């Protein structure tokens, strides 16, 4: 694979991933306006039932929106069918993780396996060294090697979802919206009179029409069976039963369905026997975590131990941590400076130094 740390020349071809939403539409328009030889590509990832046509993104209508924008910008535009790969690497993973009592992050998987793997290869086939997307993040090319940084709009920063990019691919990725705020993006969309200017934000889990992911998982688990079990307190006392661990997420308060003298939260899920451990809020705090399948962007191999900040879910502030790297650099032990609430297995932990994304991994377990 070609690595590069250069911005493309104006004569270069750039492939842009277009979802039909406002962000990727504006990203495409900005690149086209700068004169690049832009080519749009949309991924068809799953089929939407005909009667649910307005409920999710990447539906045929979204693809038509993307096509309309591309046509307006005079860009060639293609739809590539990645339904099989999406089902295998994202939907099956999503359901399996819930079945194992974990809380998956499908956007990270889609970025790692579809956008920045298959689509990046496809862009090479189309004669482009570069792939652009509408993510709010930045690739800093000022140094010797490209560095992934947070998007300047802190409320929209999507770098959390990007920690798993292959390090050697960074130089080939462009995020034209990285320096913009969402308001500026909408403003640009209106200035450019794009069809998608006033489109709603897509929901977080694109393939779950209507957003009821528990029902989605339940339907898919109906065949392979769910894992029922006891609901217990920290001391092991059984206070109830549930009919499947897939309904629970660490940190969750609602839906436990047990009256208790103080509010109960899910502390831990044990997939082996289906036990769900609950407790009052103060028991939810963890002093650290173990993360696996780490990917490093700022180092070939991380130093043995280092201080940085970390985000343990998308919507949380980075907190100071001390990271110890295992013998295998894909496994790390993370110690929080202050105990953190609801460390959730399956979610990503992403490491930052200021606005630089060092890398990240998947939370395996919390440490009290």
């Amino acid at each position, binding site marked *: 694979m070609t690595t590069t740390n250069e911005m493309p020349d104006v004569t270069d071809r750039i492939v842009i991933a277009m979802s039909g939403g406002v962000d990727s539409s504006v990203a495409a328009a900005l690149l086209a306006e700068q004169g690049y030889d832009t080519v749009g590509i949309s991924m068809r990832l799953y089929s939407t039932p005909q009667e649910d046509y307005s409920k999710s993104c990447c539906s045929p209508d979204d693809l038509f929106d993307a*096509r309309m924008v591309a046509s307006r910008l005079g860009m*060639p535009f*293609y739809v590539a069918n990645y339904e099989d790969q999406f089902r295998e690497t994202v939907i099956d993973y999503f359901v399996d993780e819930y079945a194992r009592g974990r809380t998956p992050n499908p956007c990270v998987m889609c970025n790692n396996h579809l956008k920045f793997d298959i689509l990046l290869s496809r862009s090479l*086939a189309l004669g482009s060294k570069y792939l652009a997307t509408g993510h709010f993040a930045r690739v800093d090319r000022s140094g010797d090697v490209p560095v992934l940084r947070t998007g300047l709009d802190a409320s929209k920063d999507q770098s959390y979802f990007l920690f798993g990019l292959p390090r050697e691919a960074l130089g080939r990725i462009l995020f034209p919206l990285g320096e913009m705020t969402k308001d500026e993006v909408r403003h640009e969309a209106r200035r450019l009179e794009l069809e998608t200017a006033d489109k709603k934000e897509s929901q977080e889990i694109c393939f779950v029409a209507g957003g009821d992911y528990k029902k989605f998982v339940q339907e898919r688990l109906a065949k392979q069976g769910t894992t029922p079990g006891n609901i217990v307190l920290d001391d092991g006392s059984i206070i109830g039963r549930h009919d499947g661990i897939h309904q629970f997420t660490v940190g969750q308060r609602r839906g436990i369905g047990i009256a208790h003298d103080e509010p109960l939260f899910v502390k831990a899920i044990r997939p082996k026997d289906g036990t769900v451990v609950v407790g009052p809020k103060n028991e939810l705090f963890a002093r650290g975590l173990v993360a696996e399948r780490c990917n490093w962007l700022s180092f070939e191999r991380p130093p043995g131990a280092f201080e940085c900040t970390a985000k343990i879910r998308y919507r949380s502030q980075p907190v100071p941590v001390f990271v110890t790297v295992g013998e295998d650099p894909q496994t790390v032990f993370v110690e929080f400076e202050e105990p953190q609430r609801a460390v959730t297995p399956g979610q990503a932990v992403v490491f930052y130094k200021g606005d630089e994304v060092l890398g990240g991994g998947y939370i395996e377990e919390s440490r009290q």
Partner: protein
Amino acid sequence: MKRIYLDWNATAPLLPEVSDAMVKAMSTIVGNASSVHQEGQAARTQVERTRRAVAKALNAPPQAIVLTGGATESNNLVLRDYIARHPEAALFATVVEHPSVIEVVEDLQAKGTTVHRLAVLHDGTLAADALASLKAGDLVSVMWANNEIGNIYPVREIADRVHAMGGRLHVDATQALGRVPVDFADSEADFMSLSFHKMGGPKGIGALLVREGNKVERILSGGHQERGRRPGTENVPAAAGLEAAMNVLQQCQSSWQATLKHLQSVALSELRTIEGFELRGALSSGGPSLPNTINFAFEGLDGEDLLLALDLAGVALSSGSACTAGSLEPSHVVVAMGFPHTEARRSIRMSFGPSTHEAEVVDACGRIAQTVDRLRRI
């Protein structure tokens, strides 16, 4: 960069005679062909002139011709109506038919019709003995020529066989028209579906030809047009274009075929110089096939990668069939020939027409060679 259009089996550019006739009809014929006034009579006259032109070009009596909205409609009409009137009949169809046959067969099977799928060999030719279980009154559907691999099927032979066993034969001749002579009388088919836009005629008009002694009853309701067999206001501008197309076809049939044969041999000799070139369909085994279609693959290269890269290099080809959103599925035809999905995904189809220039074919093959080379080096 000049674009080169080599996807005539999807659709062809309009013949200039056709577009002239359509524009003229749109601006001069205002009436409804079912109206009694003179404006209506003018429209009626056009429709009947078209019917006669189709009849003449295809060697069929005018009464045999039902004008429809296209071959998809003709296929639906003949299969659904036949089974509705003969619920005990079994339906035989090849596995390489167009989706407008295959999906109708699936629908009918789901509703209880006995279905026999006629398998093909690795080069797409029909497996022998496919009709062994045919009984009197059954309906067989076989395409004259395949849209994706270009194979020509022996319809006359099949017709004789089917008739000897008391069955009926339907032939979808859409891809054959304009490439090889299509003679309805000589084919002995009982029913023949056609559309005309693959040879430069208008889109949105087709025909179902019905041999004397057979009948078709409407599957849509709402009017007496086409002798009660196809309701709906006649598409007069398309009919005018179709008349023109049939006149051109009669004049040019034999010269077109010679031109296409020449273009095909030029393309093949160019493509054969590219490393890893692999021909698919009857063309690879020397069986009868269309002179305008070449289905091929390059070892190790994904068809979709190649197709998109070539589009950006200015060459319009096709691969598989596109769904509504425009994404590609591997060709059901190539899959039916026994290729695994990954292999089927490598298939690329080049199809040209009589107005394609030799220099365009050579240029396109050069761009294919360059693109293949570039993709191999990634």
